[in-house]
């Protein structure tokens, strides 16, 4: 069954251009049904998982393609499968204004399968395989509009990702050579007998592999592909470049750190200090660029860069609490950011305005969208009572607990970034609701909220932002058990 959830999106995707749908709604129903069914299947699989490993192909020695459900895969697969149906629904409405719909939905749905492949991979090789595949299936989505800008962006995306994967490959080799197995085992698989005397080389390779996977997670200095990739249609930017693709990078780093190299091996070494410093820098850098940026989607993309490094910051604290913080932010940020991206997309879809200075006075014309945007902005800032506060609380507490002064500096970075987040998000809100005394309302006369296909996902995400904010105990408990290696 585990292979089924990966295959269904593949088949569906390929069928979309192949079946000659008479009407558009038939295609919509077909796509939405299969995606929802697949998501239900994924959740069923996660809730009734067994510890057995599904072996798909065996190469040589201990190299094989196999799948397994463990705690980490539950978090990531659960997240992705919860968001995908909503994003698809949103895409139906959004894509009415774009061309080449079939191609779009082909690759969009393929990506679903590939992402699940990453989430459910049982060993480093399988994950690496799907990781490369993810780059390839998402390139056409970035290129979608076929403008010169889009082609350049996708080319950059391709080179960056492939280059990063090459570095990550080094890590894979090292684990194959110096580990007892390539399977993901909580606590790491490095064999102390083999690694003796080679610590520094291994640490160097870890840093390189971290940066390699970090390309997808947009770690500075490998982040410039992400804002550029914002030329893609909004469902892609929102789901792939705020959740699926970039979080695959973060997910891969967590796998590498906690399940392959092992925190016992890495903790307290210079490698930890190096990656933590890089991550801390990225947190502040991303936010500062977001403040400077005037294009709405690109501003949100820079915000993603910063927030991804929150996740990595939690991960490189390398304590169970740190991992809890990382996982909390992985999930909560996904909901918050997809929500704000969808708002941005709704504005672009309804008004064709892309720059922040064009948003003046829209708040009264699109009250629902901007109301929701305000909530997601407050959540990203970390106002108590909304999701962002809890995840930042977990991250900061883990940093305090770790007792390392560098991590304490990290808290300061988090807070500086929170302030910058307030600046780049709330200035948008203020523009929308306080356009100035002499604002000419006739310029926004015909603008109104989008229809239910766009609003429904927004409402659902808002509910989750608030729910996670006021009642996150069960989900945090689950992260605790994942971080303790119990699931």
């Amino acid at each position, binding site marked *: 069954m585990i292979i089924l959830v990966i295959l269904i999106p593949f088949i569906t995707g390929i069928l979309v251009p192949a079946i000659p749908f008479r009407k558009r709604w038939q295609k919509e129903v077909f796509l939405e049904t299969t995606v929802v069914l697949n998501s239900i299947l994924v959740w069923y699989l996660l809730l009734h998982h067994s510890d057995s490993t599904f072996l798909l192909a065996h190469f040589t020695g201990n190299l094989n393609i196999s799948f397994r459900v463990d705690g980490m895969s539950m978090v990531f697969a659960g997240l992705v499968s919860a968001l995908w149906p909503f994003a698809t629904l949103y895409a139906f409405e959004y894509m009415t204004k774009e061309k080449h719909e079939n191609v779009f939905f082909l690759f969009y749905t393929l990506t679903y399968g590939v992402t699940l492949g990453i989430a459910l991979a049982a060993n480093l090789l399988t994950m690496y395989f799907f990781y490369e595949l993810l780059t390839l299936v998402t390139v056409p989505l970035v290129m979608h509009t076929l403008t010169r800008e889009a082609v350049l962006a996708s080319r950059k995306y391709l080179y960056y990702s492939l280059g990063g994967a090459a570095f990550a490959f080094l890590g894979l080799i090292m684990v194959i050579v110096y580990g007892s197995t390539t399977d993901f085992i909580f606590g790491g698989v490095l064999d102390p007998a083999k690694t003796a005397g080679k610590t520094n080389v291994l640490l160097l390779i870890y840093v390189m592999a971290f940066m390699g996977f970090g390309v997808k997670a947009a770690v500075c200095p490998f982040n410039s592909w992400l804002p550029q990739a914002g030329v893609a249609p909004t469902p892609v930017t929102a789901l792939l470049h705020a959740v699926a693709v970039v979080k695959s990078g973060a997910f891969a780093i967590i796998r590498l750190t906690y399940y392959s190299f092992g925190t016992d091996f890495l903790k307290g070494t210079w490698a930890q200090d190096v990656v933590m410093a890089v991550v801390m820098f990225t947190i502040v850098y991303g936010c500062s660029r977001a403040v400077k940026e005037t294009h709405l989607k690109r501003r949100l993309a820079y915000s993603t860069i910063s927030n991804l490094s929150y996740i990595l910051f939690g991960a490189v604290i390398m304590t169970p609490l740190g991992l809890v913080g990382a996982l909390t932010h992985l999930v909560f940020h996904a909901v918050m950011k997809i929500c704000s991206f969808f708002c941005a997309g709704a504005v672009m879809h309804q008004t064709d305005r892309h720059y922040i200075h064009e948003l003046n006075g829209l708040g*009264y014309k699109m*009250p629902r969208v901007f109301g929701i945007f305000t909530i997601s902005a*407050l959540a990203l*800032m970390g*106002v*108590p*009572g909304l999701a962002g*506060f*809890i995840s930042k*609380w977990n991250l*900061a*507490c883990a*940093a*305090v*607990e770790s007792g390392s002064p560098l991590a304490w500096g990290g*808290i*300061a970075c988090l*807070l*500086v970034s*929170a*302030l910058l987040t*307030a*600046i780049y998000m*709330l*200035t948008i809100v*203020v523009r929308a*609701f*306080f*356009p*100035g*005394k002499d*604002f000419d309302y006739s310029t926004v006369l015909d603008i109104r909220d989008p229809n239910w296909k766009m609003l429904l996902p927004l409402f659902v995400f808002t509910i989750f932002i608030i729910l996670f*904010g*006021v*009642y*996150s*105990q069960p989900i*945090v408990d689950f992260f605790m058990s994942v971080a303790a290696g119990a699931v």
Partner: protein
Amino acid sequence: MFPILLSIFFPIAAGVFLLIRYRTPLSGEKRNTDRKALLLLTGCFLVITAAFAVAALLTGTGKDGFILFNLTKTLPVYFRIDSVGTLFSLLAVIVLPFAGFFSFEYMKHEERESRYYGFYLLAFGVLNGLCFAGNLITFYLFFELLTLSSMPLVMHSGSKEAVMAGLKYLFYSLCGAYAALFGIYFLYRNCDSLTFTAGGALRASAVAEHGGFLLVTAFVMLLGFGVKAGMFPMHAWLPTAHPVAPAPASAVLSSVIVKAGVLATIRVLGMFGTNFLRGTWVQTAWIILTLITVFMGSLLAYREPVLKKRLAYSTVSQLSYILFGLAVMNETSRTGALCHVLAHGFVKAALFLCAGAIIYKTGKTRVGEMRGIGKEMPLTLWCWTIASLGLIGIPPTGGFVSKWYLALGSLKSGLPVFDVLGPVILLLSALLTAGYLLPLTIYGFFPGADYDYGSLQKKEPCKLMIVPILILTILSVLIGLFPDIIASTIDMAITGR
């Protein structure tokens, strides 16, 4: 339990209701009837909220505290009424409804009045929540919400200046809040719980292990929350933001909302314990900052020609009187500080409303233009004069009592240099206070021989405006005439019952 929850969530719900129900601006023929309905609703909401809050204070149901729910296992949203909370809540419950009634007339010609009332009610609920919060997390929650709900009041007029001022207010406040949050993360690690307890909640082992770092944390938190209280060097938002708001909103901002910073400071002192901080570099640095602010605020107010801006600088200075009293860290000075919370609260609200009445009736904003104003609006200017005396600290008023305790506490404290320097600076500042408040009285009542009495018109504002001013002025005198009642409440606050 229920009065507390109602006093918090009823106005919040009511505010949201107003924002949604009246989301389009009132216009057309039905504007007047619609407006009446809006005002009636708002008035009822204000009175009901105040009633709930008073009920919460009187019934004493909140003394034991209760947990509303848990954000996570270790983060309870916890409410409890203690005496410090009571004191601050008292101020909010009196000032907010009166300033609200005042705005019914003042906001007559403004657009989008409903937005103003909506956020006004939101801020009222949030203030109640702030006063009744029983632990640091709950407090922080309402502290951030307070900034967010009062920002639209600053921006209300929608002019570029107002919007920029609102953003400045927002970013300064958030900057302070995040500095405080930094401290909260560390307190959480080093305390058994974040519930407010008298006399400090730090673990002894934590103090022994990294006391030095905890002092830094305390200082960062005091600075952070000090932003809201307009303490040097983060005071700059206050003179920008307060004057651009509509006058009743500036009254509330200046007399109540900035006090949130004071309340926060008291809570922080409670968490760390004065014994931990007394005699450390944190205390010295803090006292220096407050004294600088006291003097600088007065001096800037003295030089400022625009009336509302002058009052805003005065707030900067007066709030640091309170902070100075807290920083000295003995009981007498603390009594003075808490007394001054009430005294300054009533006086500053009255003064801002007077200024509002003058602006509303005459359109004059600069002190220099207000010659002869006492002939046109005698009642308003009498109120101004009496309230001014309170702020300067002339005997029968509340300001005298609080300053007396402040000076006494400082002299008794035995601190090197500051035990004498403190009162000296307070006195100098009082002199300046007289210098910046009384000219309006003098030129208002005695415009000089060349004043043109012929063109004089009666411009006394209507009852809706003058009655709130009168009541607040009378209150500011009453607390000076009967300081025993206040002092006994405050004594309770200090002993922590």
